[in-house]
């Protein structure tokens, strides 16, 4: 029996009727999921929603099978308690914590069942208290009398989002880092249910503001798939250009910040400036430096004129030269490499087992890249080989970024040169009722999954967003083990995960 049995197999961005998704007992559901992961599949999303009477809960799994380039979908009824999947399959640990928090159910035997967002439950009755005390949970503690704990945040020293970090240390050595989030929770998932409304696209655009293009691409792909249309080729190309600009801008900013964290100021300063230059190119496309208002279901709101294409091509070349000089300087400096190498190392097997995605996974040698494994939009026509590095340390995470910057700049130039003609926007018809669609997109941090179902009125029955940070925060915690506390800023920046994308 193949690991993909009995999942309903479908492609990325290919909707299926809700009624056609196989439904099995929870016991089998659990076994099939674990077998699928053992067979090389990855969990992408696990939405839960109440039945029409509100008495029962349904659960759905979106498994990515990269070997056959298909997504496998399976549903079941979610019992109030079940034997946790996490001990058998650690990549489910954050999903089970989310489900337990949102729906007041219990995965028995979960090793660290604590809230991930400190948000009110989705099952709350109107008269129940809405407040959950943020950061009030049973944190890990060390019993050794020589051990000590360092607690940091939610307000940090830099211009950065809030999160709470607890280091369990012995001397300078970190035994474990516990990460407690939820400070950025704005209630997006709840507000998306019942949509689309005038606000839906804006929720997605600001879900993780530095990934506006990535998440909005997923939103547009979802609505277009549910409405059974394809965006015009020219719109797809402009979306891909915007997505790669977003990747380049963030990677350059990250490399600059990594240089800053080891005290190498030239690259910090050059990259800080160049990042702004790249954001300005996105503003050239649509007026907004983060690409807000550019992507819409049906296409893009702004076309590229010949003059802008020339301007962008010239600017991309200038940015390539500036970036190359700034970043190669850093990688040729032995004192920087001495700090990057063998700091925050993760083994490839650890990364695979805990379900890491994106740059952090590729820096451990995993060839995970949605643009290549489950191509969508323009990436169906323009192949981008996956950039990996095997070291799994801060150097690897920095170097994969540099490889991707070069690849993306070349891709943007090529797309500008070969921009397809024609329209940039189509009318979006009414979306289909009673359908489910899973969309994967490679954001600059990694895999973005939007898993969406529509009800009989064509409204979102649920709209589940899984940001890459959701998979990766625990990777940072493990990378810190046996490091010194002073390595934390460097390790943290080498992952550069999103707080708001996680907290939603």
């Amino acid at each position, binding site marked *: 029996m193949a690991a993909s049995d009995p999942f309903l197999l479908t492609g990325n961005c290919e909707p299926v009727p809700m009624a056609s998704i196989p439904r099995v007992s929870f016991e089998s559901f659990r076994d099939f999921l674990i077998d699928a992961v053992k067979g090389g599949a990855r969990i992408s999303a696990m939405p839960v929603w109440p039945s029409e009477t509100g008495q029962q809960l349904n659960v759905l799994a979106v498994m990515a099978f990269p070997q056959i380039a298909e997504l496998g979908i399976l549903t079941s009824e979610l019992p109030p308690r079940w034997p946790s999947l996490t001990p058998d399959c650690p990549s489910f640990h954050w999903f089970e914590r989310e489900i337990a928090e949102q729906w007041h159910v219990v995965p028995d035997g979960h090793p660290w069942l604590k809230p991930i967002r400190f948000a009110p439950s989705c099952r709350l009755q109107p008269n129940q208290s809405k407040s959950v005390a*943020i950061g009030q949970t049973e944190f890990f503690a060390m019993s050794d009398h020589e051990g000590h704990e360092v607690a940091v945040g939610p307000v940090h020293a830099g211009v950065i989002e809030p999160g709470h970090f607890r280091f369990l240390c012995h001397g300078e050595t970190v035994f474990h880092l516990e990460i407690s989030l939820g400070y950025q929770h704005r*209630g997006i998932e709840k507000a998306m249910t019942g949509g689309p409304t005038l606000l839906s696209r804006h929720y997605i655009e600001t879900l993780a503001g530095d990934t506006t293009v990535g998440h909005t691409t997923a939103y547009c792909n979802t609505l277009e798939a549910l409405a059974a249309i394809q965006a015009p080729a020219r719109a797809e190309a402009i979306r891909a250009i915007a997505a790669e600009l977003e990747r380049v801008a963030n990677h350059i900013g990250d490399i600059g910040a990594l240089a800053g964290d080891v005290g190498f100021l030239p690259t910090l300063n050059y990259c800080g400036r160049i990042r702004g230059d790249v954001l300005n190119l996105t503003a050239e496309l649509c007026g907004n430096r983060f690409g807000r*208002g550019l992507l819409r279901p049906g296409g893009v709101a702004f076309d590229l004129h010949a003059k802008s294409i020339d301007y962008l091509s010239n600017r991309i070349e200038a940015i390539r030269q500036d970036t190359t000089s700034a970043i190669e300087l850093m990688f040729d400096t032995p004192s920087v490499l001495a700090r990057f190498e063998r700091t925050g190392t993760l083994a490839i097997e650890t990364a695979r087992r805990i379900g890491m995605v994106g740059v952090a996974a590729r820096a451990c040698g995993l060839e995970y890249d949605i643009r290549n494994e489950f191509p969508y939009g323009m990436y169906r026509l323009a192949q981008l080989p996956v950039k990996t590095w095997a070291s799994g340390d801060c150097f690897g995470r920095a170097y994969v970024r540099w490889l991707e910057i070069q690849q993306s700049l070349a891709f943007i130039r090529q797309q500008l040169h070969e921009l397809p003609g024609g329209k940039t926007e189509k009318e979006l018809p009414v979306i289909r009722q009673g359908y489910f669609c899973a969309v994967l997109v490679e954001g600059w941090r990694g895999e973005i999954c939007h898993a969406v179902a529509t009800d009989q009125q064509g409204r979102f029955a649920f709209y589940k967003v899984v940001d890459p940070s959701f998979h990766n925060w625990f990777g940072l915690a493990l990378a810190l083990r046996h490091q010194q506390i002073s390595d934390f800023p460097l390790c943290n920046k080498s992952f550069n995960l999103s707080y708001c994308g996680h907290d939603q």
Partner: protein
Amino acid sequence: MLRIIKTRFSQKYRTMSFPNGPAPELPERFAGRPVISDNCVSGCNNCQSNCPTGAITFSNENECPAIDTGKCIFCRACQTACPSNNIQFGPDYRLAAISRNNLIISNNPPVPENIRHRLAAKLFSRSLKLRQVSAGGCNACEADSNVLGTPAWDMGRLGIQFVASPRHADGLLITGPVTQNMKLALEKTYAAVPSPKIVIAIGTCAISGGIYCDHPEQCNGAESILPVDLFIPGCPPHPLTIFDGLLRFLGRL
């Protein structure tokens, strides 16, 4: 070492001359201060019904729309929806205000108000140290504030800097709608800043809650918790809008 010096030359001097020279050029499609005219078709409220955040109102005596830039996310849905081209988001980046009411813009907009803050101009005009607090911000307002410290903008040359501790700060720069989960941390951070202190709300979320307005998970902006001295609207505001707002607030422009 020689390589570092050589790279320094090839990267050149890139700090803008603003505020002593002209402001940097903004992209053609930039959406700045709305320009509203009053040729409305009687009874038309397309702009209002297409606005995702309820930023547009019509006053009774006047059939011309007014946009509350403290709620507006500059998505231009109203501009597209208007049959008479009455709403344009112009190139003027000067959007900051020191009173909430002055963020509401209607026809015949006055020249952007004088936003010099008496206390801030007297105490902090040559040195303003700010503690940034993200309270549900999406990282866009944070990024466009942070960029002001990079060599292109270099607001440090004018004495404005972000500092690591609230105890070293003259005030707070707040982004995000102020989530319930950040409320206490924000209050504590404010309390830790020595008086006299100022509060700056950056971005539509921090001013009114923005698109998250009335979600139970947040507090509809910083003003619900703290006295706000300077409002800088946008989603996110362009760095130039923030820079201009800070400089005029301090009486340096």
